[in-house]
């Protein structure tokens, strides 16, 4: 347990700097983008010079960049994410409303791609060079090459428009009064298509990594030894080869979580899922700095936490990895 604690402490100290860089960097990037929240707002309303001045003042945009950054950091120190300009509500509330949807989507899609990907990878890697190995490798590569939005649209056309088996989008049935298990089932049905679209793209990654890792392990001496001991092929594949090939996949899982967050922007738009990715896109378009900073910060914390969990898991999976090495 102490190993994990040392790791945790070291990681937390490092994370604070990472988060600070992320916040300041995002702020400066958004400031460098031409146009502010008022410019974005008046696209749909128009208005005279007096109204525009009034809005800039109301939204605090008549202050200098430095003042606004300082104010933001000071508020952040007090764990206050500020007020969203476009929603006129606390940023924290807006984000917390959407976070569960994105987490649900990400966790399900990761489970799908990791679970199915590594299982198929084991299946393919158990007989390297066989027909099933080649078929799965090529098939998964094809999926990996497909853009996420296209896959999403095709799934919609086939399963929602033509067959009408599944809903076209959203996170649950609109304005229904479902509660408890009914509601959970409703949400699960709505998640099938977006999870498939997001998960299938990353499936190839795990499949190919698992397969490559297994090919590597096959050549190791302990596999030969296991064979010499007369163990069944099934046992060799599962207990010796696959288990050792699994380690790099766990690392990948951590790295992939950030990618998945990016992929969810597109999938959430295509499937009308009210999540963080879509919110981030809207925040950029409306130049809602506090909201975007809040989302980026939330995502950064999420990625840091996931990687921390991965490191801890790693330390337990492979006893050779001490706290020292894992903390790098």
């Amino acid at each position, binding site marked *: 347990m102490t190993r994990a604690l040392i790791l945790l402490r070291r990681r937390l100290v490092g994370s604070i700097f990472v988060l600070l860089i992320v916040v300041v960097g995002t702020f400066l990037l958004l400031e460098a*983008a*031409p*146009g*502010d*929240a008022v*410019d*974005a707002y*008046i*696209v*749909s*309303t*128009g*208005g*005279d*010079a*007096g*109204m*525009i001045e009034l809005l800039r003042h*109301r939204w605090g945009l008549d202050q200098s960049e430095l003042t606004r950054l300082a104010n933001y950091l000071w508020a952040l120190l007090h764990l206050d994410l500020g007020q969203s300009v*476009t*929603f*006129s509500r606390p940023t924290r509330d*807006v984000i917390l*409303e*959407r976070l569960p949807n994105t987490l649900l989507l990400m966790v399900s899609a990761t489970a799908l791609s990791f679970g199915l990907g590594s299982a198929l990878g084991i299946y393919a890697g158990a007989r390297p060079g066989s027909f099933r190995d080649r078929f799965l490798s090529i098939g998964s590569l094809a999926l990996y090459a497909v853009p996420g939005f296209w896959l999403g*649209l095709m799934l*919609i*056309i086939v399963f*929602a*428009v033509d067959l*009408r088996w599944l*809903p*076209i*989008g*959203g*996170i649950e049935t*609109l*304005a229904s009064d479902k509660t408890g298990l009914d509601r959970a089932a409703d949400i699960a049905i709505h998640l099938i298509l977006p999870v498939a679209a997001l998960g299938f793209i990353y499936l190839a990654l795990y499949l190919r990594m698992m397969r490559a890792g297994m090919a590597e392990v096959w050549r190791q001496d302990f596999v030969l030894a296991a064979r010499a001991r007369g163990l069944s092929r099934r046992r060799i594949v599962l207990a010796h080869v696959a288990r050792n090939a699994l380690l790099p996949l766990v690392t990948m899982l951590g790295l992939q979580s950030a990618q998945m967050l990016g992929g969810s922007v597109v999938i959430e*738009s*295509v499937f*009308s*899922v*009210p*999540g963080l990715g*879509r*919110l981030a896109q809207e925040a950029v*378009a*409306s*130049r809602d700095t506090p909201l975007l900073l809040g989302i980026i910060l939330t995502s950064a914390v999420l990625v840091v936490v996931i990687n921390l969990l991965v490191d801890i898991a790693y330390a337990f999976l492979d006893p050779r990895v001490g706290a020292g090495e894992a903390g790098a």
Partner: protein
Amino acid sequence: MSGFTISRRKMLAGSAMLLASTAMPALGWAQTPKKGGRLVLAADSEPRNLNPAIVASNGVFFISSKIVETLAEASFDGKDGLAPRLALSWEGVDDGLSVTFKLRDGVKWHDGKPFTSADVAFSALQIWKPLQNLGRTLFKDLASVETPDDLTAVFKFAKPTPFQLIRNALPALSSVVPKHIYEVGKIEDNPANNVPIGTGPFKFGEYKAGQYYKLTKNTDYWGKDEPYLDEIIYQVLPDRTSAASALEAEEIQLAAFSAVPLADLDRISKVPGLKVITKGYEGLTYQLVVEINHRRKELADVKVRQAIAHAIDKDFVVKTVFLGYAATATGPVPKNDPQFYTADVPTYAFDVAKANALLDEAGYKKGPDGKRFTLKLLPAPYFNETKQFGDYLRQALAAIGIDAELVNNDSAAHIKAVYTDHAFDLAVGPPVFRGDPAISTTILVQSGIPDGVPFSNQGGYKNDALDALIAKASETLDTSTRTDLYKEFQKEVAADLPLINVAEWSFISVARDTVGNIANNPRWAVSNWADTYLAG
């Protein structure tokens, strides 16, 4: 239903069709109106402030016009193009200093309190005049509103204000909100801005960000037997392809405001049970214009501007960019406007040879590489069609030796670049025509507008004769004299080309056959839908 389903070929008839449609009375349906049901439709944006008295824009009206009503609504067959809503009659005095509204009796707010002239006075003086994006201009000379009794409101102006202008502005600018709700605290921070309370046929139900808005039937509505629908649900569909799929999958029954892209209309019109409707937006016409920065010395020369006008094949633009769902433009007032439009203006036929000759005459000879000069072209990103026209314009300009460098921005960046920084030579813009030149097109031409005002003359154009004409028209009270002045205005603009009007278009609705009473007024999508119904 055949009267409403307009084929693309018919639409190509263009202006004639648009003109005729405003004169056509609402056609009858074979179906009989039925009570009850839930109408689900697509929404592509989520306005945060739903108070139409503060934010007079189509995005807000689309939802809030069912909840909060105006004094009058646009109408195909009513007198002066209006139908009564909260006001039963409106009368201007000849000196232009006062307008009297007689209000509807027995109207109740959604919270049960009675609607009176005090609400109208409060809305006009405390909201429309100081806070509303459009009202700040129109009502700037409104001095007071007298309320001799509960059902009479007399608007008093400090300076003569044309009655015709007030009338034309009523459908968009006169949303009345309850005084008793808004007189407490700061108007901009009032919670009712997000949960509106009005007198309309529907009450605000709930809003789930990123998912839907729900409106429910107002059982106490003043309209006899209205509304028909029990509920209206606006489903938020941010992706441009979603609305068409959702219609086909029968998850929604209506997609207004061209939520289905033009390119999909041909296919979707063949889907059984779906109809494409081009009517019901006559009062929401958008104008495709080339905005010109007159600070560029080449563009300050009227011959160069005329050459650019001659280089644009308007028919091609209507056919290719708008797939026929538009009309070519002749000047700053759209052809489908029943009051002000005149065809008697200088025109610029598509003529590349003439354009080249004009440029030679202006002294900009082609260089050895075939180019005369280079311009920066910024197409507005708000519509697919403005972007596509930008691509077309670049090619059209290349044909006359002008090298246009396309700069594509997102909305906020475009607004800043064009209207604040003036960092453009040519821009493609989609200004809205609001039924009266005084509150729409003149602002694109007149000088003296501060930097940063969007959709206004930020091209540095200054023409004293035109400025004088605009000023005179804004003070002219007699309707026919005023109309004549705006006809003069159209001629002058078409002659001097402070900007180039290319086409006029509006939106398209796609609906299931079961949705009844669609498109029965010129601003249907932003009207109250009290008579909209779902058939069996």
